[in-house]
């Protein structure tokens, strides 16, 4: 309870920004395990209580990636002047280093620098193969363009752009990606599709705002389109999200195995003064937790306050908890209404079995689960009442699941074993047996079918899906079939049950 209250107070402090009144200090980074908790940070007592919820040894380092800085300080008028001087007011190298230094100065933070991010993404074998395909498409598109085959050039360049974006080359290799995007825009304009060309060129400038072109290299019509796209980007581009939406940053964070992603962009505000746009995206919470615009003149002084304010409000996870959490496999439980019928039966018409089922499954490793289910059925008489009595049965099923997760859906295929225990089972097609009973002298005993064994065993196969309803609950549906093979001589009268189930489940 106390911890809860303290946490609430701290959250309020975080929200009000009170935790960021602490002046900047140059503090040597001490290895977490060796760091004495009480001397480390001078915070209000309530906050100190929160920080000491975990011992230092239990605290897990927060991994933060800084994506390459995006410089959108440019003028459309200078786009065709490759030798125009850069804006001296923006020292990007120093700015980027400052962000790195501030984050590195914090406890329990490891920083992935922009160059490390680029190396990591570029070295991914799978993505490198895709990037090579994108490059090949680009070259082909270029050939088509030079060969005046605009339509084919557009198709090839569109594919190149799609592949580059898929492997985050706007982060790791923006020039190659921008080349393809520019050429796509140019090809579209060249083919007379000015609106789409404008969109493509604007997207290209979003990747590489500093791109300059040699005057006269492109026809005047293309140069005008480039100018218009640049102007449009500078005035309406989404500069605060240089690498796209939260979902895309979430994917990048996943690729980099980091908890948070920092993006920094520089642009000119409406008065023409440079400003720094800084965003902090938290992957676990899937949201932007800091989103500020700082005037370039005050950036160096305000940058630390901004970053520390955000970082103080990012909870430190427990190493122990994280470890045990990573070890704990999610368990899925469900209860369902169940229906089944037998493809091989002693009755002339099908009889129906209805009941309920309950099951549990647990993830063993990605894509693989074990499962166990129990089904309880009441089998009802068929229309001819060849089944003399309704009977009850219990089925136990167990096996493994192969799972495929797609968004809110989990699809699975379950091979396993089926153990089916039956109650009293009598069937006959003789009406005298049905009315007077199987022991009556009019009943032809030769027509009576009973299960000599009340236990059948065999193989089972089911396919189904879980549809998530929120974080924990899910709707479960599945179809299944079994084949009984044991005992070897007594499966002729009743075999091959098929069934459907639908119900509600909960993930623990």
């Amino acid at each position, binding site marked *: 309870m106390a911890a809860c209250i303290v946490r609430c107070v701290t959250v309020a402090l975080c929200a009000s920004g009170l935790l960021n009144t602490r002046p900047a200090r140059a503090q040597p980074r001490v290895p977490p395990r060796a760091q004495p908790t009480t001397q480390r940070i001078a915070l209000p007592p309530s906050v100190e209580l929160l920080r000491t919820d975990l011992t230092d040894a239990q605290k897990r380092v927060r991994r933060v990636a800084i994506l390459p800085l995006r410089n959108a300080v440019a003028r459309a008028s200078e786009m065709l002047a490759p030798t125009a001087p850069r804006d001296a007011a923006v020292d990007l190298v120093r700015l980027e280093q400052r962000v790195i230094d501030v984050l590195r100065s914090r406890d329990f933070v490891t920083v992935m620098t922009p160059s490390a991010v680029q190396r990591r993404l570029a070295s991914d074998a799978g993505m490198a193969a895709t990037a090579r395909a994108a490059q090949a498409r680009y070259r082909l598109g270029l050939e088509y363009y030079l060969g005046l085959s605009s339509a084919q050039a557009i198709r090839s360049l569109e594919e190149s752009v799609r592949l580059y974006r898929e492997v985050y080359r706007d982060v790791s290799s923006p020039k190659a990606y921008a080349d393809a995007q520019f050429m796509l825009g140019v090809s579209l304009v060249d083919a007379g599709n000015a609106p789409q060309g404008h969109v493509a060129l604007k997207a290209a400038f979003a990747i590489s705002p500093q791109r300059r072109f040699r005057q006269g290299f492109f026809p005047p019509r293309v140069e005008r389109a480039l100018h218009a796209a640049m102007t449009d980007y500078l005035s309406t581009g989404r500069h605060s999200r240089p690498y796209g939406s939260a979902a895309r940053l979430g994917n990048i964070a996943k690729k980099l195995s980091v908890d948070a992603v920092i993006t920094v962009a520089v642009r000119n505000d409406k008065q023409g003064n440079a400003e720094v746009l800084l965003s902090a995206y938290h992957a676990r919470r899937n949201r932007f937790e800091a989103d500020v615009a700082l005037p370039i003149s005050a950036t160096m002084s305000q940058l630390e306050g901004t970053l520390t304010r955000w970082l103080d409000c990012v909870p430190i996870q427990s190493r122990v908890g994280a470890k045990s959490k990573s070890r704990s496999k999610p368990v899925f439980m469900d209860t369902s209404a169940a*229906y089944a*019928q037998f493809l091989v039966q002693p009755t*002339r*018409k*099908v*009889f*129906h079995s209805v009941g309920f089922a309950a099951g549990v499954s647990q993830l063993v490793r990605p894509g693989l689960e074990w499962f166990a289910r129990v089904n309880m059925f009441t089998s009802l008489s*068929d*229309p*001819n*009442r*060849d089944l003399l009595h309704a009977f009850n049965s219990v089925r136990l099923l167990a096996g493994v699941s192969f799972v495929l997760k797609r*968004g*809110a859906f989990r699809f699975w295929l379950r091979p396993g074993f089926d153990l089916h225990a039956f109650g009293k089972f009598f069937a006959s*097609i003789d*009406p*005298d047996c*049905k*009315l*007077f009973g199987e022991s009556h*002298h*009019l009943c032809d005993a030769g027509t009576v079918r009973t299960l000599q064994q009340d236990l059948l065993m065999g193989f089972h196969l089911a396919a189904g*899906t879980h*549809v998530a309803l929120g974080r924990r609950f899910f*709707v479960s*549906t599945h179809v299944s079939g079994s084949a009984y093979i044991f005992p070897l001589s007594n499966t002729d009268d009743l075999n091959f049950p098929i069934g*459907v189930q*639908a119900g509600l489940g909960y993930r623990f």
Partner: protein
Amino acid sequence: MVPRTRRRIVRAGLTVMVTFVALCSGGCDSSNVLGGVWRAVGPPTGDVLIGRGLGGKSRPGVELVLGQYGSSVSGLLRFYRSPDYDVPRQAAAPSFECACAFVHNGTWNADSDRLSFTLNGCLPGAATKEQLFVRGNFVLDPGNSSVMTGTIAVEQLPSRLYQREQEWTFERVEGVSQSDLACERPVHADDGNVANGQ
């Protein structure tokens, strides 16, 4: 959840329901029209076949106990001492008291609402001590499924009752209980008294 996903869920749910209904439709139809205890109402018409009741009563009570299983029908014909259905005739009584006879080859034709069966037993009155092969044909009243009308006809040669036919109307009074199914072997059955066909 995006509408597209929701549409997919609804579509999947409908598919499951349709499948379930399709699976059910093969066997959910009820076809138990005749099951129950039927008792004769009113005096019979036609030839004299099932005759006088006992104890001075004009006619006996006639009861059909039927079980229907699709197109197959099983059951028995039981006789009471009077149309009041208070005292059944006893197989354990002397052999002249014809008590009951089992229905054989009972079939139900759902298209024509017709029940047909045969008996191999006695008929109180004209053939109390005689074992006869009798055919019954009854049709359900189209306006009242608890009433059926039809005939029983003797097809036993060389019986003197051959081709005699009597028309009866039966009304369903209740369902079948275990006690309704009792039809004991007659006294002296081993000595030739096989009146009820056992």
